[in-house]
């Protein structure tokens, strides 16, 4: 099994941490094992994830600089809710390089369902859209941590989420995020890093673009987790 591991730290109005992992094909069993492991670690029920993500970019002449905004439609709810997300640049400098996560600004706002029409009216254009399908765990463990395990799906027709097909069949993206503030992100980094250690038998974490390669113990760890029944709070 090959795992590509990412660890990101978002710098919100608060700060948050993310780690992510790509899991390859024969690894469906490993996804199930990860779910068992996360269930045990978090002690909270799994949440269904079905998010329609639209990436918009500013028109040719709009804005002091080109800008990008993401609209997230939560389709897991009976009545979809929408969130506007702006992701800023990564924190730089010696301090940022030494930590195992990426720090960047993220600003989010809930919005009414006409938000796409609104941004079109302001002069933004649709760049691409995907549908993320999977599950998530939200819990507190040194920080308010959210773990999502999703697959990216593309739509054959514009906004046709019901017809979405996987972009890379069998591959799952695992992300770990935690909000933090400017004055405590070191603590959040520590909390996320510590949590990621628990996933080490299955997943290794790194910043985006810094793959840690194959986790040789994953197969055995998954088999062990699945055979032990799992689901027990650790």
């Amino acid at each position, binding site marked *: 099994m090959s795992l590509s591991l990412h660890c990101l730290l978002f710098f919100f109005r608060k700060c948050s941490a993310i780690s992510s992992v790509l899991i390859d094909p024969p690894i469906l069993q490993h996804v199930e094992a990860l779910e068992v492991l996360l269930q045990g670690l978090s002690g909270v029920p799994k949440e269904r994830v079905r998010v329609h993500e639209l990436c918009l970019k500013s028109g040719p*002449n*709009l*804005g*002091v600089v080109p*800008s990008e*905004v993401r609209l997230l439609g939560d389709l897991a709810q009976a009545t979809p809710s929408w969130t506007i997300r702006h992701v800023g640049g990564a924190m730089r400098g010696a301090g940022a390089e030494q930590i195992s996560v990426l720090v960047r600004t993220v600003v989010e*706002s809930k*919005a009414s369902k006409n938000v796409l029409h609104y941004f079109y009216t302001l002069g933004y254009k649709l760049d691409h859209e995907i549908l993320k399908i999977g599950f998530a765990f939200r819990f507190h463990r040194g920080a308010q941590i959210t773990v999502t395990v999703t697959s990216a799906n593309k739509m054959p027709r514009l906004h046709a989420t019901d017809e979405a097909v996987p972009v890379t069949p069998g591959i799952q993206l695992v992300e770990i995020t935690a909000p933090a503030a400017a004055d405590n992100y070191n603590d959040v980094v520590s909390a996320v890093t510590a949590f990621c250690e628990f996933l080490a038998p299955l997943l290794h974490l790194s910043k985006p673009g810094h793959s840690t390669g194959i986790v040789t113990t994953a197969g055995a760890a998954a088999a062990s987790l699945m055979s032990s029944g799992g689901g027990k709070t650790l």
Partner: protein
Amino acid sequence: MPAVKWYRTLTSRNLPSVFLPALSLTPAVFRRRRLMHWHPSPGVTLNSQILAEACGCAESLGGVKDGRWKTSIFFYRAMTRDGAAGPAGQQGQQHPDLPRELLGVALHERPGLYFSIVRAARLVLQADAAFPQVMEKLQSYKARVALNFEVASCLLVSDFPNLGGFQYQLGDFCLRIGKCAPNNSESLRGIMMEVEYYPLSSIEKSRAIMEDFFDIWQETVAKKSLPGHFIHVESNFSEYGLSDQYSFQHTAVQYATCLQQLMATVRG
């Protein structure tokens, strides 16, 4: 002769609580509101005495002052790489595809919400209080800064107006009377009144009683022989895709309409 409904709402204040209007029993629903603004007589300069007289009218009707309120409206301008600023730009090449006017509305009683209105497209977006931060990060639309309101340029008059004033309880009604002034300035640019009717959230069902109230209010104001009068300009909610059931989005749209009227009054 006041309408029966109006008479009932006034007298209900003196009844035992069990007979009071449905307000205290009504769950938190959106209640019908209507905005009016002061239209001064030709050649008359607006002054704060009008505001004091309007508050006096509310008190003469039995209104009980129970607090202050404030609503803020922000004007945004498109930022472009060639220095033009949309159709409303003052310099360089203009961009007709960008909206001429983008308004942000922060309502007094819902600080967690923020509304953005593109009036030309009949579009109102409801977002949360972090929305202005998103706009700031995008650097595509900038909230304009009021520089000199004494110039009395029509476009500058309503930059960053703060609409604030007193709130009165009047039976089934709540009256909010206030001035319109630029941010960080006491300069008076308009007087507005917001009337909220607690029992109903349907616009159609509340239309008659709102008009009854408006008639009584006009009679009361007329007795003061003030140089002007309050007017209400109906917002076309259906154009914005809003239903008959009142919501905060309706209020935001009304503020946009009312502000447009105030600007027109200044221009006139």
